[in-house]
């Protein structure tokens, strides 16, 4: 017999009075430390509208009944596939260091060991901020957090590791680059042209998410509005000439790591996404022409497993509605959040204290991913906070944890297992509601760019970061081994770690000198006149808001103009972004 709402409500009150209250009193508490969600919490009669089937609007339950990796999971198990090394057609391990030749040699060494994934390049801060290795800003930073790239020549040197069966029409290229993304994309294009490879064959993903830089990551160059103009140009160019290449990898991961709350993460990501879609449309494109090429960079970032599952569901639903109702998208791919990896705990959830515990933590994130439509990856490896590279042991444990979740726990054999749960639907609705309210606030200010220009998003993130710190310091939030369970009886379990000598410290020491020499040689050998005239042309084009700068940037790149020379021209025209006062 069906229970009516009234019945359940009465039973709830009775339960609270007769079961919960006495128990709370018995243990001398102010309130119950647990909550329970009876059928009143959410209206699950709107299944089709609010949840839907996996692969159907609003995609709450997932983008597909199963992803490609699930299709091949059992096969992968039998052949002992190692995902982080990629394979033909897949990305390799994220990395980069030293001069282009240093990184190329490292890649060749990896390839000789069977690690044949496509380039997944980290650039040094000098490159990310649009400077050359001989700039005064470059001292001490060249080749450190990534590889130094000052010119097309440098770019081509890295790609000497990708020829023949690993040529760029066969492997995807990922570039973690934002402010000067247009220049790196231009280098990719020019390289393809040099090799006679048609642009339509190029695959991969540039991060190209400048708005989050102002909020969370700090490698910006130009003011927000002008940065969006550059984005618009890359968006239109990629859409028209490189249809297989993703346009960006956007989203809140970095904002969450910088301290944003879950709701802020979702709202700010949607606001930024909207700004990017609007930029593409301003560039003359139809939404379905380019939105399918948007990707998102692993939403996630806390230990609260239920909330992170709900977050993924809410995010998918929000984006789907925004694309459908606001932008009239018709293609399902426009409305879906394409993420290669999804929920995870975030590096800032790991602790330096008793680092092996980070494996247990990463598994929580993996479960959140596995139960919300993603690969259950145990990210990051436990030694992430030690700051010296991931050891082979940590990587092995990470891989195995993921495999255990897939094959032993069978977490990914069910799509959206929490669909219909009174609790999860209520939680999903709640996160969506709060994020929509925050998004409305930003829209009232004039959108993401306005909310960055007036410092709203930056200050919100800084404030949230401080709130969390205070909660941890006064034990309102408990972090094991950091602010609780730190007594003398606890032991620090450690294992021998072998960090693969990927980045030769001797090479690192001389990288700056050698790269400066490369740069000097380039400047001697290239055709200075051609460089000068192509930079001049770029300036003229940049001064006209309606011009797409990609052809002019490609011309500069082809003539061996350096990254900074190109960025400096744009600095002259666009100005530089001013840092935000906190």
């Amino acid at each position, binding site marked *: 017999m069906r229970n009516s709402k009234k019945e359940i409500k009465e039973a709830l009150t009775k339960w609270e009075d007769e079961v919960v209250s006495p128990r709370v009193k018995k243990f001398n508490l102010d309130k119950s430390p647990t909550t329970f969600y009876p059928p009143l919490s959410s209206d699950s009669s709107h299944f089709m509208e609010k949840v839907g089937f996996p692969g159907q609007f609003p995609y709450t339950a997932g983008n597909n009944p199963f992803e490609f990796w699930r299709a091949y999971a059992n096969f992968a198990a039998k052949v002992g596939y190692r995902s982080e090394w990629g394979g033909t057609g897949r990305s390799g391990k994220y990395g980069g260091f030293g001069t282009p030749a240093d990184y190329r040699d490292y890649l060749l060494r990896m390839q000789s060991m069977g690690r044949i994934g496509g380039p997944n390049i980290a650039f040094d*801060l*000098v490159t*990310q*901020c649009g*400077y050359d290795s001989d700039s*005064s*800003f470059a*001292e*001490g*930073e060249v080749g*450190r*957090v990534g590889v130094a790239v000052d010119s097309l020549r440098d770019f081509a040197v890295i790609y000497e590791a990708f020829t023949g069966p690993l040529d760029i029409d066969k492997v995807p290229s990922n570039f973690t680059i934002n402010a000067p993304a247009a220049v790196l994309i231009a280098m990719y294009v020019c390289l393809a042209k040099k090799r006679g490879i048609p642009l339509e064959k190029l695959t991969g993903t540039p991060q190209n998410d400048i708005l989050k*830089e102002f909020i969370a*990551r*700090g*490698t*910006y160059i130009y003011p927000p509005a002008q940065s969006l103009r550059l984005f618009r140009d890359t968006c239109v160019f990629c859409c028209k000439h490189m249809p297989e290449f993703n346009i960006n990898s956007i989203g809140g991961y970095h904002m969450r*790591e*910088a*301290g944003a709350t879950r709701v802020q993460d979702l709202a700010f990501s949607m606001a930024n996404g909207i700004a990017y879609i609007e930029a593409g449309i301003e560039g003359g494109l139809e939404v379905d022409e380019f939105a399918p090429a948007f990707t998102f960079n692993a939403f996630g970032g806390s230990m609260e497993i239920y909330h992170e599952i709900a977050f993924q569901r809410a995010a998918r639903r929000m984006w789907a509605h925004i694309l459908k109702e606001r932008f009239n998208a018709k293609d399902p791919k426009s409305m879906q959040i394409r993420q290669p990896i999804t929920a995870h705990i975030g590096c*800032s959830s790991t*602790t*330096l*204290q008793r680092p092996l515990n980070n494996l247990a933590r990463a598994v929580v994130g993996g479960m959140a991913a596995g139960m919300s439509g993603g690969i259950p990856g145990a990210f990051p490896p436990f030694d992430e*906070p*030690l*700051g*010296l590279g991931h050891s082979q042991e940590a990587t092995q444990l990470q891989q195995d944890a993921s495999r255990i979740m897939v094959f032993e726990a069978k977490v990914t054999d069910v799509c959206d297992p929490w669909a219909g749960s009174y609790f999860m639907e209520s939680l999903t609705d709640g996160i969506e509601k709060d994020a929509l309210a925050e998004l409305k606030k930003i829209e009232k200010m004039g959108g993401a760019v306005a909310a960055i220009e007036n410092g709203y998003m930056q200050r919100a*993130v*800084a404030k949230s*970061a*401080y709130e969390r*710190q*205070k909660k941890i*310091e006064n034990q309102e939030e408990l972090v094991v081994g*950091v*602010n609780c369970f730190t007594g003398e009886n606890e032991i620090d379990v450690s294992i021998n770690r072998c960090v693969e000598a990927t980045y030769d410290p001797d090479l690192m020491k001389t990288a700056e000198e050698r790269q400066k020499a490369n740069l000097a040689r380039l400047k001697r050998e290239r055709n200075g006149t051609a460089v000068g005239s192509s930079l001049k042309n770029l300036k003229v084009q940049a001064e006209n808001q309606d011009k797409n700068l990609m052809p002019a940037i490609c011309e500069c790149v082809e003539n061996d103009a350096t990254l900074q020379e190109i960025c400096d021209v744009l600095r002259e025209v666009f100005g530089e972004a001013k*840092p935000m006062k*906190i």
Partner: protein
Amino acid sequence: MGGDSKIRVLIAKPGLDGHERGAHVVAYGLRDEGFEVIYTGLRQSPEQIVSAAVQEDVDVVGLSILSGAHLSLTKKVMDGLKAKGANDILVTVGGIIPEEDKKNLEKMGVGGVFTSGTKIKDIAAFIRTKLGESS
């Protein structure tokens, strides 16, 4: 210290590292501990940091570095402070600092290294103690 005096701390991010969370949290935290915190923001050259430290007559310079360039950047700041006759200023470093580098920094004259998990209260107490010792 005089009747109205406050402990003045300069928090700076040298180099190109753009991760500000730690710097923000420490700035707000030390404010709530009653300190006056001058925050310089991102992309500070060692010269800019030294100039600010001298002009603001700070008691402490806190460097926040997550890019791995901490040894070279800190050295430049320490040298710069010395050249201006300001090497009595307490210098601390925070961010991503591997264990073995902590000793190297201390050899340079850095008074304390505060990495992930440090409590703001402890930083404040450390500063008060160190400054109390030297006055």
